[in-house]
């Protein structure tokens, strides 16, 4: 089954290849979209989240100073506790934010310093809390003892100094925290930038790859088109040209190859062979019919019909040139037919025809004129020239024997010759030959009689 389907297979393969390349290109493009969308969302998720966390962290660490102020301003335990609640809440949140930042894939590096600073800040606030607590208690004591109680005044003075110092420490630690966070913010930002750049590069690379794929697809397309054009279109056109000619010759068809077009070409070639075979046969039949129409079946000499037609055609030549006409008759033919049968008669006729055509020049127009009669036009010869030829034939015939059913037959023939009568039609000459034949028969058969030219011929002619 594979034979003869090569074209389909090959076209299918090429189309398949083309489709494959196109689909791969599209697939690659889609895959790229998916990859880059993921990368972008990952970037935005992680990095933005990390940036938000870092900025919140910075904000909170700066707000710690404000909470410290609240603590400072507390003049009773209610206020102090309220401030400490806020401070520990803030501290808890800062710790959470730190943990989040550390865990984020967008950050790098050690957070140990940050954590240490935070721990220091917490300790510092605890210390401040203790101092403020003592201040509040000492204030209360002073109130109960009286405003000029030296002991409490001195204690308050020292406490205020220490509180101020502690506040300065707090502020420095808060700033340190803020700056340390700033480092991480910077890092995240530069990472984001480099990630974006890297992504851009990768996208550019992928673009080039896709362009390459597209180029390959174009190439395969061109190959396919070229192949189709050559192996299909071109061959079909050639085939068309070959069979559109006047006389298409089957041998000229190109049936090489093993595919559908080759098969079609072979079929066409086969038809063409059939057609030309038929043509030849018809021509042969025509020739045969033609032959049969103008020849005698038995002797293969021209028949009377043809002879008369030929004479008509040659009128010009006959008028202008010399010729002689011979009439021939087989002697006692009826007797041969009656005594020995028609087969013997046929054989005799055939033999006589054969000898006549042998004996007469090639230029002679010899025909079977009747059952046992023959006529011949001998152009360019006078009667006198023809007579010896005829005589020779007569002698040959006398010596020729025909064997029929073990019986030997001897055949003789009578000849009447007439030469062209000047300024007269052919029919007159023919008639003259006929007269001569009749003379020959009357004089005893088996002889050649020449009809002489008479004055009456021309006279007759002028008359009639």
């Amino acid at each position, binding site marked *: 089954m594979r034979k003869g389907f090569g074209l389909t297979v090959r076209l299918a393969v090429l189309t398949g290849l083309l489709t494959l390349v196109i689909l791969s290109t599209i697939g690659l493009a889609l895959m790229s979209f998916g990859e880059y969308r993921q990368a972008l969302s990952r970037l935005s998720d992680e990095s933005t989240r990390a940036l938000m966390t870092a900025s*919140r962290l910075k904000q*909170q660490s700066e707000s710690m100073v404000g909470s410290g102020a609240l603590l400072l301003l507390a003049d009773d335990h*209610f206020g102090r*506790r309220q401030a400490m609640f*806020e401070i*520990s809440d*803030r501290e*808890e949140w800062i710790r*959470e934010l730190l943990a*989040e930042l550390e865990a984020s894939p967008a950050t790098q590096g050690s957070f140990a310093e940050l954590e240490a600073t935070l721990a220091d800040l917490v300790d510092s606030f605890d210390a401040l809390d203790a101092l403020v607590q003592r201040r509040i208690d000492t204030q209360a004591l002073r109130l109960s003892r009286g405003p000029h109680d030296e002991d409490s005044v001195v204690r308050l003075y020292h406490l205020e100094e220490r509180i101020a110092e502690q506040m300065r420490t707090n502020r420095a630690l808060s700033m340190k925290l803020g700056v340390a966070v700033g480092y991480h913010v910077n890092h995240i930002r530069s990472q984001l930038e480099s990630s974006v750049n890297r992504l851009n590069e990768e996208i550019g690379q992928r673009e080039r790859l896709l362009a390459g794929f597209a180029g390959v697809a174009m190439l395969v397309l061109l190959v396919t088109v070229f192949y189709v054009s050559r192996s299909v279109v071109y061959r079909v056109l050639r085939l068309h040209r070959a069979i559109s000619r006047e006389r298409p010759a089957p041998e000229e068809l190109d049936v090489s190859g093993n595919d559908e077009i080759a098969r079609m070409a072979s079929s066409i070639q086969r038809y063409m062979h059939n057609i030309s075979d038929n043509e030849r046969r018809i021509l042969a039949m025509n020739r045969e019919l033609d032959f049969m129409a103008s020849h005698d079946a038995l002797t293969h000499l021209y028949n009377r019909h043809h002879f008369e037609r030929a004479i008509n055609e040659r009128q010009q030549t006959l008028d202008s040139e010399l010729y002689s006409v011979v009439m021939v008759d087989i002697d006692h033919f009826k007797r041969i037919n009656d005594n020995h049968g028609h087969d013997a008669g046929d054989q005799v006729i055939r033999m006589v025809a054969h000898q006549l055509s042998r004996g007469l020049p090639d230029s002679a127009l010899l025909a079977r004129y009747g059952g046992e009669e023959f006529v011949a036009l001998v152009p360019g010869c006078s009667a006198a020239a023809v007579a010896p030829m005829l005589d020779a034939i007569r002698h040959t015939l006398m010596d020729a024997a025909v064997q029929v059913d073990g019986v030997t037959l001897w055949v003789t023939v009578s000849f009447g010759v007439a030469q062209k009568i000047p300024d007269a039609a052919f029919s007159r000459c023919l008639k003259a030959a006929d007269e001569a034949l009749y003379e020959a028969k009357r004089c005893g058969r088996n002889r050649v009689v020449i009809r002489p030219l008479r004055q009456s011929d021309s006279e007759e002619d002028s008359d009639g």
Partner: protein
Amino acid sequence: MGKRIAAMTPLLLAGLMSFADVTVAQQSLRVDLQLEPPHLDPTRTASATTAETVHRNVFQGLTRIDRHGDVQPGLAQRWQVSEDGLRYRFWLRQGVRFHDGRRFDAEVAAYSLRRLLSEDSGNPQRLLYQAIREVEVAGSHELVLHLSQPNSLLPFRLGLSAAVMVHPDSVHTNVTRPVGTGPYVFQGWERGSGVRLAAFADYWGQAPAIKHATFTYTGNRLELEGGLAEGLIDLYPDASSLTSHMALSHRADYRIKDGFSEGEVLLAINHARQPFGDRRVRRALSHAVDREALLDIYPAISPPLIGSHFSPRHPAYVDLADRYPHDPGRARELLAEAGQADGASLTLTVPPTQYAESASLYIASDLEAVGIEVALERLDWPQWLDQVFGEHDYDLTIVAHVEPMDIDIYARDDYYFNYRDADFRALWERIEAEQEETARHALLGEAQRHLADDAVNVFLFLKPQQAIHKVGLKGVWSDTPIPAVVLQELAWE
């Protein structure tokens, strides 16, 4: 022609995509409940935040309480009570499935109720249902409850989070992976990003408008207020005591709803710790606290003061708010009488709730003003549940009891108050048995007076309910007759 269609297709797809993006955003919701739940099985914890996360969303009960506090059919389509009040017949809904595909039928309902009643189930509300003597399966979707004594509160109680329907095959993992019949399926719980729920495709009722919900638990007040300020939170059920309340109420993208809860805020006293067994000390505490001044923690509203463990909104309420007026002098006298004149010292344990933190500051000052030394101990919610609620390891604590009609907790010997009073227990049994409403209300009044007289706890005020939510969110409950965030009733405009 084909080429034109091919060229149009990418445009159509792009259009569809952008349309899809818009619709997704409006179907999700982020709710913050300040307290972190210990786990997600509401039948094994009294923590309201578990109920708020999963009750009515993941789990459902035979009945449900609507936003007005009325009982409505839930998984039971209807029920009938016998003449003598001792038999309840429930007809259950057909075609209900659990989230894992298992069927809900009378056998499963019976299992849930029997588990609720069994002693080793760990259900803290078990005693509410002890009137149920027997659970009978009367058909594939028919259930009969046989009671030992009439209890007209039963249909209401079946709508509470402790009585939700669970399946025997999935119940053991409900603490971490809750599987119920509700309109939302549990998707995951990541500490830090909260509990994620998604609409259940095969829900028996109407599909909810909100398709994705996240519950986060932001304990830190600053972080919570920051989240609200940044617009990260869509719904926060109680904004009443936020320090940024005033600022938030002026923002155009948020709305604050005024409503009522059933939460009695108490200064709870551990009767097992000395000197709190002495009534005089307890009465001293009640006189020492200036409750009017305490209301300053709410910048925008003034909730009602209470004098006992009962909601002023209930018809049986007796106003005992003035039983112990603010009188530091009287407090000192009582303390001296009880032998505590030298100054008692105690620890006030503070859970992370807003109102508790704010109130603790006032209460600490008030107690210090009558000579008591106060140390403040701040715990996070799981710690509070373990230490205070579980192990009863505390002196005083500030807490809100948000379950409706839960005065019966004072009849429980093993409750964390450690209040054991036979008289009150007897009174409560009479209340449970009393069918006739007026008589029952009278008895409830007696119960209230009993608790006030005994100064069992210092009763402060009724917790206000001020949900804050993004403009455009419809269906938020104004009142909280039960602690719940009912997602299926919410929708974005």
